[in-house]
């Protein structure tokens, strides 16, 4: 068994591809630095991430693969699943080796598996668009926090910037402890060394809210209650479309 160790960055993965082809040895297992090794293995090779090698691999892929297949690679990377590195490696390798790209061959288990992950990440991205809730702070900034299953905030920046172009906002990933701030001109990535209470709870406390915030929250909760048809109450269906894991930060689901 051949093991490659890399730094778990996208560039690192592309360097893995480059090195594997130049050494003509292909990994059976990809590990991050410091991850436990299996008992039996032939060889361990440590990859040194190299911008230039990574670019060469990516350029080659851009020539061979469609836009959809390329997005499948970049988007499913954000799943952060432990097996994603090796799966992507195999997918890339199959595409390089085949005379024409195998990206649409869903009969191939790796292609199918990857397309499933790609879809799941896409769905989580969409759920951010659905279930993100802004609360207006006294300084005029709109604040929203979430804990998406996958690292999908970056996929939503373009959408948020377009839609909420004329308001300042901060969206924050509580699980990964970073977010994006928009100041009416550009979006920047932000991290906070000191955690204010709302960066832990995801909710603004009343003393730092805009004066009308409570009223609009009440109005929305009232609307949410009134719009349901009593004769059709169906909590199971509601949960199917709006999984409970999102409720914690949904305005309409706050006490």
């Amino acid at each position, binding site marked *: 068994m051949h093991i490659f160790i890399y730094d778990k960055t996208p560039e690192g993965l592309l360097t893995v591809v480059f090195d594997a082809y130049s050494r003509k040895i292909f990994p059976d297992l990809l590990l991050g630095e410091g991850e436990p090794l299996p008992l039996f293995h032939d060889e361990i090779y440590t990859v040194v991430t190299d911008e230039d090698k990574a670019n060469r691999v990516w350029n080659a892929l851009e020539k061979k693969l469609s836009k959809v297949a390329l997005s499948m690679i970049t988007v499913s990377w954000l799943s952060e699943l432990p097996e994603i590195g090796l799966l992507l490696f195999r997918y890339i390798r199959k595409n390089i080796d085949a005379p024409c790209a195998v990206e649409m061959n869903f*009969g191939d288990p790796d292609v199918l598996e990857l397309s499933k992950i790609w879809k799941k990440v896409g769905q989580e991205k969409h759920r951010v668009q659905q279930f993100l809730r802004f609360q207006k702070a006294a300084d005029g900034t709109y604040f929203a926090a979430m804990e998406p299953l996958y690292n999908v905030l970056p996929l939503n920046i373009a959408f948020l910037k*377009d839609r909420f172009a004329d308001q300042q906002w901060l969206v924050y990933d509580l699980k990964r402890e970073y977010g994006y701030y928009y100041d009416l001109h550009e979006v920047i990535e932000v991290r906070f060394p000191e955690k204010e209470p709302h960066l832990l709870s995801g909710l603004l406390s009343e003393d730092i809210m805009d004066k009308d915030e409570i009223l609009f929250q009440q109005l929305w909760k009232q609307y*949410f209650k009134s719009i349901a048809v009593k004769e*059709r109450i169906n909590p199971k269906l509601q949960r199917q479309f709006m999984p409970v894991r999102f409720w914690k930060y949904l305005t309409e689901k706050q006490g």
Partner: protein
Amino acid sequence: MNESVLEKLKILAESARYDVSCSSSGTSRPNREGTIGSAAGWGICHSFAEDGRCISLLKVMLTNSCMYDCAYCINRRSNDIPRATLAVSELVDLTIEFYRRNYIEGLFLSSGIVRSPDYTMERLVRIVKDLRTVHRFNGYIHMKSIPGAGRELVQEAGLYADRLSVNIEIPKEESLKMLAPEKDFQSVFAPMRYIRDGVLQSAEERKRFRHAPRFAPAGQSTQMIIGATPETDNDILRVSSALYKRPTMKRVYYSGFVPVNGYDNRLPALKQPPLVRENRLYQADWLLRFYQFKVEEIVDDSYPLLDLEVDPKLAWALRHPECFPVDINRADYEMILRVPGIGVKSAKLIVASRRYGRLSAEQLKKIGVVMKKARYFITCNELPMLTVNELKPENVRRLLTQKKNRKQDDRQLILLFREQEQE
């Protein structure tokens, strides 16, 4: 804006909630400098109410006072219910403030009829115009066109709204006249025609002047109430099919009758809205729009009611064993689409993948085919031949419906709104 709006919003949302549509799809419009918002094209459900239905728009009436007396409607004039009217500024504030918090995609505005159809329509038009031109709201707007409203007002509404709708409510005119004495088909179909003319005319103009104004870019929709009158599924689906043949009709919604006015004995006393039937109608509608079925393949005079036990596609397959089995590795896309257990997505995957080699049952399963159903209707690489022809349709039906005998709440079978937004 103050606390009194809370009570009004409660009344007016409760009055608006029986309108099923909440879709925000059909318009893709990026933000423009100086405006608020965008339209996403594919529609976004921002929440799901306790009844499991999508909340995409702020669905509210301008007023729930009404001079008409439609028997099936909670807002009819003879009902003694609280009435309210929103001020224009309140409606604008609610829309924009909800929008800024990502609660909604936009507004779905309707109204009870006050004074006259035209008078009411004019008030609605003024609001959507204000939202667009004064407040620069660039999100989604769905406006109900008032039955009986004149051409000019409908023409103007289409300049500001993304979608317009006029509800048929009752599929046959004699039933409509019995339950809604102030309405007739003319009052419904005339505004529908104005909307269609507006959309087509604007499309024509935009070919010549790229900057000619867009007219209701998301087209129109309508709704029929199910189970309030004796019409069969055949009657209902014929109306839908005829409507879909006309340009601009994007969606027909089916609303299982909720007996809001129990005292009116022109209406049936239902214990529960007919939810399973409603679901079957949505499935049949789906077959009309995406599966290339003709309405007479789904229902006809000798088969006027949809099968409540199995979905309409399976019902069709069981009536037509001679069309099966379908060879997955050879058959046309259209025929693969007809196999129970294979949806649009898996049919496309099958056609894309089989170019690389013959597909096996195992691969079909992984692709997302519901083999439990499909196995009786297909052949592929290695599947043993035990299809609907050897087993006989009645036995396949029994095999596929057995599980449902376990006590199960029918409502939980309903999956209809999952794909609702993807028009």
